[in-house]
């Protein structure tokens, strides 16, 4: 799992969005459970890290091939 930067505002925004969606989808009680909270933290870091990475639009996106 990538190391997260707690004070990065972009990551905090991702985490807030995940928490809002979790409450809306699963209810406050479930969204507040520790395991879900921990996982939202690591997922926010991963989403933030992926979203941060620029990539040139390549025009024709290739169909996914794996190796």
């Amino acid at each position, binding site marked *: *799992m*990538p*190391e997260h930067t707690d004070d990065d505002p972009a990551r905090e925004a991702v985490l807030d969005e*995940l928490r809002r*969606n*979790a409450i809306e*989808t*699963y209810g406050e009680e*479930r969204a507040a*459970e520790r*395991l*879900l909270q921990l*996982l*939202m933290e*690591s*997922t926010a*870091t*991963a*989403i933030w*890290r*992926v*979203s941060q*990475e620029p*990539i040139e639009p*390549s025009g024709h*996106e*290739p169909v*996914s091939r*794996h*190796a």
Partner: protein
Amino acid sequence: MPDTATALHELSATQAARLIRSQELSPVELVEALLARASSVDPRVQAWVTLDPERALVAARAAEGAVTAGAALGPLHGVPFGAKDIFDSEGLPTAAGFKPYASRVPTRDAEPIVRLKKAGAILLGKMVTTQFAYADPSRTRNPWDDSRTPGGSSSGSAAGVAARLIPFALGSQTAGSVLRPAAYNGVVGLKPTYGRVSKRGVLPLAWSLDHVGVLARSVSDCALFLAAVAGHDPEDPASVPSVIAEPLPPMNLDAPRAAAPRLGVVREALQISTDRLREHTLKVASQFEAAGAQVSEVSLGESLDLILAVQHVTMQTELATVHWQLLEQYPGSHQPRLRANIEVGRLVPGVVYLHAQRLRRRIREAMRRSLDGIDALLLPTAVDVAPGRETTGDTSLQAPFSLVGFPSLSLPSGVLESEGLPLATQLVALPWQEATLLQTARWCEAQLPLMPAPPAFA
């Protein structure tokens, strides 16, 4: 009969196949010996979910008859194997550790089982998996130390091979579920190139990351396995047609190599390993260099934190897609970590998943470049030895190669004397270069001390 000093349960797949072919070993006696071993040892290890003694003995008697009759024999003729309990098996429950599936009995074998049986192998039974091959620990014990995890998700397959319950076993890897259990249990684990081995009939976790692999006691066993199961399957959309997949050449791993291998020690892997694993890996690399290998330091070409972020987003989104309806259909039946991952995975935006796939292609090209001019990457299989049973371990050093689909192999490379736990070294090659990977691994294996059985199971 084999050397009387060698108990039948000690035989590797390669040794057993050779002895059966030369009529020095009866497949019936081998199956009976392994069933007896299961009775005496498995209560401690808990590697088997289901044994199939009646049908295994019928198959063993038929195998013995074929040998006696001088019939054409497959490369694994008469050799028993186990299958992780996510591989469909005709007439045997396939539950994936999921209670609602306890009575799910497939009517058809998964393709890898079909191919192993065609090669003459005998399915002895099904082995414990973590639920749906995810990260909630299973009941299986590590034969080296039952306070430690055997790893997962192929926990039964790895612990069973280590405890001499079975010569080899089918496993699967989405992040690190073949290589990490192999490392923690002191056995060899192979994950071939994505698309090399059919997944038809294998319950999915995350489709673009799931690989079929094997746990065995030697590199030669892995080569025998791969030759039997590799090849295109039109029923598996991820199986790569032979016009694209480079064919697997015939392998004679015992033939002398023209030259010692060229190995690249992965800088990023050493940076995140514990001191003792870093020191062990550097010692192993020096040992290979002293034996003639060309050893250099290489980089993966992309930062490890980005690689693992792409893997996280990909795996979580796909497993949520695969499992969210099942979660609603059977509330309360999923293990806590899997359930939480499905729930959070549903919240990952689609554009992030797709952006991750574009980055994944970039990462794959960078990793290809890191293998320019070398035969294999060399790195620790895991960041440390097996941790406690509350986890299945850290996937950080196996997951990058599941993400890009490159073939990887874990080789036992020593024992950490202070804790009595196995140490392991990972080798990774370019896609479709399993022959190079296995030949390199065989050379490395020959430089290392023979891995003993876990002391309590020797």
